[in-house]
């Protein structure tokens, strides 16, 4: 029998070891390797905990303020995976700067400290049972990640950091109002004062919280955490921050930070739905924000010139798709969680490729990035494949999750929402494909640096593409089981049925 404190405490060992590596007298490469090692260790710890102590049981620690359940495990695994991929990539990404002496040990230590600190607070968000602690940790992610945007220290990154810091801090302040209102609503359910913010205590009294207060609370929560998740119309910080951060940071922003903000909304969703009489109002709000995000992406993606801003608007679209799936409920929730993994992996690959191509061509301007497939035989095709995955081409897994969301909308008779979703998706499909063809095909544009890659880069591309294809063809039973349990938590019900692991089954 493993104690709860030991289980949950072990999740912080790897990120904290990464933080400590920054204090050791190691060079820039040593700091970056330590980050990759810490993330690999975290992947192993999450997998071990899920197999040994997790599955159907909640684990509590530190006065019930921290806990683990299937929804936490799922997101913890995702965070560890994306951090591992991005940490490995960071070793290649910064290699030229290390050789040129512009990414010396001092800068590397600062980067390593912030990178692993960011990893640790994201882990804390996903382990929080106390919704106050969850809010504090999510706000802490804003503060730490803001400094990561500033890694280059040029005028554009300062501007992006300022917008990110101010907008997200103000946005998350609204979420705190929602959290306070939740504690007020808990009084109606006679929750003991010390437990008024414990998610498990509130979930055990589902339906007994004050419905009117919870309705107002959910609006604040949705606007507050929605700002951090990049849902339109609160998304304006996202294209700037994603485009100005170093590429490994952009990858973790898009691949996990946005998901963690949506995770916070997922925790509130069943509480609000049950206390408001299961009439679907919180779900309807999510559908509205989801559709708005998809349409904003459809408007801005066709006119993008900067390759990283293009990917940032894709993030707005995919956050919208996940919100839409959550809004549909039932099978939609299952598909939304599945889409979370698919988006994270495909967007991580897309940012990796875009970052290396931008360095190769010496610009982020897509008009100057021509014939990438010929110029860079690894990252050029990888970018094209990543865009195909992102726009939902079969047999990549994004197609599967989007197909399930369409099925959920048809099953629920939500045809108007489906029409808007399909229209937005078609616009994004056509315009993103055009951008990808322009960048990857045609006459080769001039480059400023020779194409260069490392064996680990091959491994990264193969791992990401392999995962996207594998999940598109077949989902292993343990993964379906995990998704079903996580969906049931978001739904506040029993496990979702009606989804089989194989393609089109």
């Amino acid at each position, binding site marked *: 029998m493993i104690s709860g404190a030991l289980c949950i405490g072990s999740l912080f060992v790897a990120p904290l070891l990464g933080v400590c590596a920054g204090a050791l007298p190691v060079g820039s490469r040593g700091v970056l390797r330590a980050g990759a090692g810490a993330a690999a260790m975290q992947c192993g710890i999450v997998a071990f905990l899920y197999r040994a102590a997790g599955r159907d049981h909640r684990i509590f620690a530190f006065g019930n*303020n921290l806990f683990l359940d299937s929804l936490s495990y799922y997101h913890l695994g995702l965070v560890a995976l994306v951090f591992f991929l991005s940490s490995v990539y960071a070793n290649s990404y910064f290699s030229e700067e290390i050789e040129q002496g512009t990414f010396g040990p001092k800068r590397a230590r600062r980067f390593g400290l912030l990178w692993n600190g960011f990893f640790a607070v994201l882990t804390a968000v996903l382990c929080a049972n*106390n919704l*106050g*602690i969850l*809010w*504090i940790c999510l*706000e*802490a992610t*804003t*503060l730490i990640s*803001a*400094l990561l945007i*500033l890694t280059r*220290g*040029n*005028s*554009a990154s*300062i*501007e*992006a*950091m*300022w*917008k990110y*810091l*101010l907008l997200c*801090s*103000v946005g998350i*302040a609204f979420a*705190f*109002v929602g959290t*306070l*209102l939740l*504690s*007020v*609503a808990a*009084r*109606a359910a006679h929750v003991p*004062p*010390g437990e*008024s*913010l414990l998610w498990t205590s509130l979930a055990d009294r589902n339906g007994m919280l*004050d419905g009117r*207060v919870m309705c107002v609370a959910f609006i604040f929560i949705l606007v507050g955490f929605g700002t951090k998740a990049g849902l339109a119309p609160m998304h304006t910080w996202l*294209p*700037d921050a994603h*485009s*100005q951060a170093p590429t490994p940071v952009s990858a973790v922003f898009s691949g996990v930070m946005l998901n963690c903000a949506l995770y916070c909304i997922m925790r509130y969703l069943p509480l609000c739905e049950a206390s408001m009489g299961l009439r679907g109002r919180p779900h309807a709000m999510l559908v509205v924000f989801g559709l708005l995000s998809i349409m904003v992406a459809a408007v*801005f993606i066709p006119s993008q010139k900067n390759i990283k801003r293009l990917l940032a608007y894709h993030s707005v679209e995919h956050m919208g798709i996940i919100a839409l799936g959550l809004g549909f409920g039932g099978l939609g929730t299952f598909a939304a969680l599945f889409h979370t993994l698919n988006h994270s992996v495909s967007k991580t690959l897309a940012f990796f490729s875009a970052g290396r191509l931008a360095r190769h061509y010496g610009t982020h301007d897509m008009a100057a990035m021509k014939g990438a497939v010929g110029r860079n035989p690894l990252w050029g095709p990888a970018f094209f494949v990543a865009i195909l995955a992102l726009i939902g081409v079969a047999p990549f897994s994004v197609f599967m999750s989007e197909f399930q969301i369409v099925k959920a909308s048809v099953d629920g008779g939500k045809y108007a929402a489906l029409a808007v979703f399909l229209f937005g998706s078609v616009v994004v499909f056509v315009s993103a494909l055009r951008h990808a063809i322009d960048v990857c095909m045609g006459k080769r544009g001039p480059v400023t640096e020779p194409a260069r890659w490392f064996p680990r880069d091959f491994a990264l591309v193969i791992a990401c593409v392999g995962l996207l294809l594998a999940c598109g063809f077949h989902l292993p039973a343990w993964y379906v089981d995990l998704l079903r349990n996580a969906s049931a938590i978001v739904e506040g019900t029993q496990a979702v049925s009606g989804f089989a692991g194989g393609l089109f089954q």
Partner: protein
Amino acid sequence: MRTPADAFIIVLVVSNFSLLGSSRLRALIRIAAVQGLVLGLFPFITQAGAFSAHTLIIGFGGMLLKGVAIPLLLFRALRGVEVYREEKPHVGYTMSIAAGIVFTVVAFWAGAAIPKSALFPSPSLVSLSIFMAATGLFLTIGRAETMTQIIGYLVLENAIYCFGVSLSSSQSMLVEMGALLDLLVGVFIMGIVIYHINREFDSINTEELEVLKE
């Protein structure tokens, strides 16, 4: 004025109008500090003599952070950039005062609509919170200097603190202290950004931040 809380509410309402009508950054920081000190007294007033260690720590902690530590950080940042006035606000000062009057009417009308109950024991504090939140957001959006925007954010945080007191919500001390610590670190980092903005753009006016405009 029937209770000490009413006197403090008047002080805070007046301080909000001072924030809306002033262009001098030092004065703005001082007013925000006064708000922090007054708000730190609220937990003592609402507890009506039944002081617990929790009340003492939250009250004094709030006063120390919002009334002393954060203003000192902001004064230090201001000395570094040598900018002392809001030169070209997005919204003029007369219009700002007019907006303040509208905020007051709407906030106290909304507060009056909330019945006094076990869930909302102090509707007037809820009104004050709404007014302060509107003022904070207005300063963040309607002013161009980054320092004034930080003060707007601080006023918004003050509004939330006031709202928390109005609900008499007994969060764990860990949560309340964590929220205050986040605020302190947030303002500290914003101070660092002001330094970087001034170094890069030779100004702390957000009008200069247009590299990323689409």
